[in-house]
């Protein structure tokens, strides 16, 4: 039982990392109807920024805090230079352009930071472990991720549900043309949304960096999962992204943890260990496919339906 709770915490931590990434993605997709494959690159660049700033300033906290506005700036510049021109195009053009951006960012990172990747070491105050469950010391850093994730979720929820700009976002997700017709500065809204999305992605990258190290292409794998999350959650819905990240994150982690034992009844240990992560990954895609067939709008569809 204790082991299960520990695995659950691991899953929750992964889920909240996914949420940070998915939240930005779903907003960008929902408001601007823009398929942003380069979201994973923003995740990666955020991690690289944090690692570099931490090294320069010799402080983990400062490095992390500085990386976020840097990523925000990058997101805004990117939006104004490239993304903005693609809103009127079809999704295929989005796929082509953002795929090109992925190649560009990966290679640029290789040129700037070298091919070997970087590490982002934790400061000593985060390397301790706290006894969250009796007899179970849990790394403080992972608790921090959970804490930050929940905090951001809370802030986003408040922002979207209780502020004017949140109202504009919800309205824009439901009916873009109307919002424009009502005289709202759509361009500025879009730039802000993209910038916030970039910031969230960078935050996810920063949080993941100490555990997973910083490397070229680190965004690609998690990006795919983020897409799964936003489809299951409902495109344009932050609430949906939250619920779906929990489902996907916990399922993936707990599946990876327990499936090998079940499989070992039928397969050899190497077979079970090979098949288990594959099966739990397959299951997540099966889940998404089922949703797409049965309930394509997702768990929390944007009101008014999508076109």
């Amino acid at each position: 039982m204790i082991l299960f709770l520990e695995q659950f915490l691991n899953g929750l931590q992964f889920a909240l990392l996914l949420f940070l990434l998915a939240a930005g993605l779903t907003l960008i997709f929902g408001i601007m109807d823009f398929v942003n494959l380069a979201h994973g690159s923003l995740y990666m660049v955020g991690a690289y920024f944090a690692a570099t700033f931490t090294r320069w300033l010799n402080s983990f906290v400062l490095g992390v805090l500085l990386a976020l506005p840097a990523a925000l700036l990058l997101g805004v510049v990117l939006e104004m230079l490239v993304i903005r021109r693609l809103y009127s195009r079809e999704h295929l053009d989005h796929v082509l352009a953002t795929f090109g951006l992925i190649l560009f960012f990966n290679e640029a990172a290789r040129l700037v930071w070298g091919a070997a990747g970087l590490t982002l070491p934790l400061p000593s105050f985060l390397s301790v472990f706290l006894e969250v469950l009796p007899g179970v010391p849990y790394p403080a850093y992972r608790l921090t991720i959970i804490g930050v994730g929940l905090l951001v979720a809370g802030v986003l929820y408040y922002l979207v549900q209780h502020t004017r700009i949140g109202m504009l976002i919800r309205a824009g997700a439901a009916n873009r043309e109307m919002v424009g017709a009502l005289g709202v500065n759509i361009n500025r809204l879009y730039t802000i949304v993209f910038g916030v999305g970039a910031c969230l992605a960078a935050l996810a990258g920063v949080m993941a960096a100490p555990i997973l190290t910083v490397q070229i292409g680190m965004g690609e794998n998690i990006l795919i999962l983020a897409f799964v999350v936003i489809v299951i959650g409902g495109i344009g819905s932050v609430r949906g992204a939250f619920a779906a990240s929990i489902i996907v994150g916990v399922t993936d982690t707990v599946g990876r943890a327990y499936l090998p034992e079940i499989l070992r009844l039928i397969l050899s240990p190497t077979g079970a260990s090979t098949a288990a992560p594959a099966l739990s990954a397959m299951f997540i895609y099966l889940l998404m496919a089922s949703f797409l067939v049965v309930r394509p709008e997702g768990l929390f569809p944007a009101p008014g339906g999508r076109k």
Partner: protein
Amino acid sequence: MFLLTLFTRIVILAIAAVSLNFILGYGGMISLGHAVYLGIGGYTVGILAHHGINSGFVQWPIALGLSALFALVTGALSLRTRGVYFLMITLSFAQMVYFLTVGLDKYGGDDGLTIYKRSTFAGLVDLSDKVAFYYVCFAILLACVLIVWRMSQSHFGVVIRAAKSNDRRMQALGISTYRYRLAAYVIAGTMCGLAGVLLANHTDFINPEMLSWTRSGDLIIMVLLGGLGTVIGPVGGTVAYLVLEEALSGITEHWQIVLGPFLVLMALYRRGGIAGLLSWSRRD
């Protein structure tokens, strides 16, 4: 000779691009999981070869049959959705098979599996002869291009193309676009499965990378570069993409920093890709 290897690879991937163009260019169905058929074709050959079944007369029909079956089942489900949802669901089916191949410990999993003997055809043609193999692939490409051309000119092709631009009108006319689309999807999947069979023979090696979503992305780019909805377009696009990749990587190992923005510019300013560029200049 390295050039022969490169050209063979171009021809094989062109077959895959032609098949994707049939549903994407003509039919407007954006599939981000088309590379799965490369994998199904390739893995059939690889697994059978691993068990000592090397005859092409056995391997190839099974590979094509499995591709068609997979396309039928997943297509039937996927085609109930449209636009970006279709994109995601084709992606998810491809990812499922991807993880399945990763999980197949017996057949190498992530490490992949070497194919020690190419498909044999009872002495009719020796595929391990690089030149002969190239001609076989080229002949198959020609056949596929011909098939797609004939189909696009036929009633079948007209329906597909009309359904892309205005599905509701077609349905109002009483035509079950779903059935036409599904047929197109199965044909495209089978053709790509054949490309997968050839690819496995070409590289003497299969691994899950063949099916990854980035592979599917590469295929989309090749189709887009060549211009949607033309018969020769995807071939041109494949040639352009692979030659560009080869040439640029010879100049600098950081070639992707050039290719990336090139694709972005293509997206911003394209009107029909390379085929479009050609006809545009002719219009002048």
